[in-house]
Each structure stands twice: as C-alpha cells, then as structure tokens.
C-alpha cells in the first residue's frame, strides 16, 4: 500500500531524530517489516530512494528485516505462523486467529554520521 507516504513518514522520523541524536547524515536505515504489514518491499525500496533524494538520507542504504506473521489460534490455544491476514490456522483450519506479531513497521536502527 501507500509505500510513498510510508517513506515520507520515515523521513520525518529521521529528521526529528537528527536533532536529538546529533547526526547530520544517515547512511543506512534498518527497517523491521512484518509479513502482515502489507508493505511491498520492492515498492518501498523504490519510493525510499525517491523520497530521500536531497535529504539528510540521500543515497542511504535501506536494509529490511522481515518478521514472520504470528497469530494466536483460539481453538488450538497456541501461536501459529501465518503468511497472510486471512490465512486459516495451519493446524485446525479455524479462522479464529488473533494476529499478535508480524504487522509491525518499525525503524530499528540507523548508521549515521
């Protein structure tokens, strides 16, 4: 979805943090993206380069850490791995699943100057 506006949000965070953390250039950005966050990583990479142009993160490298989707299955009473939001439980076939990990989009770490 909206990878462009996500990159604009990333840039805002980088700019805000620049003052607090006292850096003027970002060389690498590590993002943690959940498998259920509906982010198309190819589109994200493309938008990232475009949005960062001329900013403090111009030409920065983007590293994406992919986090698998995990949900609590009520009938099974345990966590199961899911690939997509509408997946059924791989063990019992139920759709009574509560996603508890893998929908995050976080900036984890920066390499700065």
């Amino acid at each position, binding site marked *: 979805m*909206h990878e462009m506006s996500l990159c604009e949000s990333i840039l805002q*965070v980088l700019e805000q*943090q620049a003052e607090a953390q006292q850096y003027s250039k970002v060389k690498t950005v590590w993002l943690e993206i959940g498998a259920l966050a509906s982010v198309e990583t190819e589109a994200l990479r493309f938008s990232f380069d475009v949005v960062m142009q001329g900013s403090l993160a111009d030409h920065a490298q983007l590293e994406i850490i992919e986090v698998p989707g995990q949900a609590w299955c009520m009938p099974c009473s345990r966590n199961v791995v899911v690939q997509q*939001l*509408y997946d*059924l439980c791989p063990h019992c076939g139920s759709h009574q699943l509560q996603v508890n990990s893998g929908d995050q989009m976080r900036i984890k770490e920066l390499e700065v100057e």
Partner: protein
Amino acid sequence: MVQIEQDILAKNNRYAAENRRYFGERGMLALNLVSSPGSGKTTLLTETIARLKDDFDIAVIEGDQQTARDAERIRATGVPALQINTGKGCHLDAHRVGHALETLQPKNHSLLFIENVGNLVCPSAFDLGEAHKVVILSVTEGEDKPIKYPDMFHAADLMILNKTDLLPYLDFDSEQCIQYAKQVNPRIKILSLSAKTGEGMDSWLRWLKAELELQRIDYA
C-alpha cells in the same frame, strides 16, 4: 549506530491519540467511514443525518482528493461539514483531522462522521482517533473484496453491505461475502442495507445510538 525503535506511523499515531482524547473529553462518537470510491458513503450519511438530526448533534469531515462536492451534499442536510482535499494523498491522516476539528468545533456528545478518501487500501493504516472504522461495501463490487483487500476488513469493526436494492439484478453471493469478511476478521459485525430505499437502515441507526450512548458514560 543509533538504535531508535520507532514505529513508522508513530507521528500519525500521536496525533490520533490526541484526537481520541479530544473525542473522549467531549463524549463524542467519531466514526471513520472507509470504502472504495462510489460505494455510497455520502448517500448513507445524508440519509442517516435526515433520520437523526432532530435528536442528535452531528458534524461531518469529508476527505476527497479534489472538490468540495461531498461537503456541499452534507451541508444541504443542514449539518456542519468540512471538506479536506488531500490532493495527491490517498488517505486522511490524524494531523489534518485534528486541524479540521479546530475549525469545525463539534459539540459535546455529538456524532462525528469522517468520510475517508474512497480507497480500500491506504486508509486502513492511518488511525484518525476514531472509535471505529466502518467499512462500506456495495453489492456491485463483488463478494471477494474482503479477501482481496484484507487489511481494510481486518481494521474495521463494522461492515455495511450497501445497495441491497440491486441484489435482484446481480449474482452477488451475500453469504460468501460475509464468510470472507469473517475469515479476515472474526470479530467484524455486518449489516446489510440500501441507503437508497431505506431497507435495513433501522439496524444501522440502532447501532449508532447504542455506540453514542456508550461514549456518554463518564468513566473515572
């Protein structure tokens, strides 16, 4: 190296939390209406307002890329409406909604409808501070939309299946649609109605009144 551990949407989420506090302090019910273009959001709103405006204070925030047409349609019903044009933007964000509130000055205990930009994808990720997202799906769009655009149906608490007056002319499979929606979101509640003929509107009005009543409870 700098560890920052920041949610990418943190900024939007902070503004959303402010809006949510604003609504809470005023005992307001704020609903975020989302759907693909043309599913009938504005029609549902004008029909709803016509039935409720004598008993409740209502205000509307309209999000569209261009034009003020929808806000004008709302104002014609006699309730205040503010149009936000997002330009290239494909969704409303909590910051712009916060500014709209300053201008609109909704009354205490009022019902605030936020009609989002017609788009089944992007608005799902942007919390506006609403009590609930309400997704509207019209029967002309096909029963598979909940599994094609799962994020939106996952994020919504209520789904309204609109334009049921057209069912005789289509081979839309309502049961399958409902099953798909529950597959993506087991907790979703579903209402079927026709904003045009008014069939099924009663349940929606009852849902609104019940939700509004819940916001009026003053918690310590």
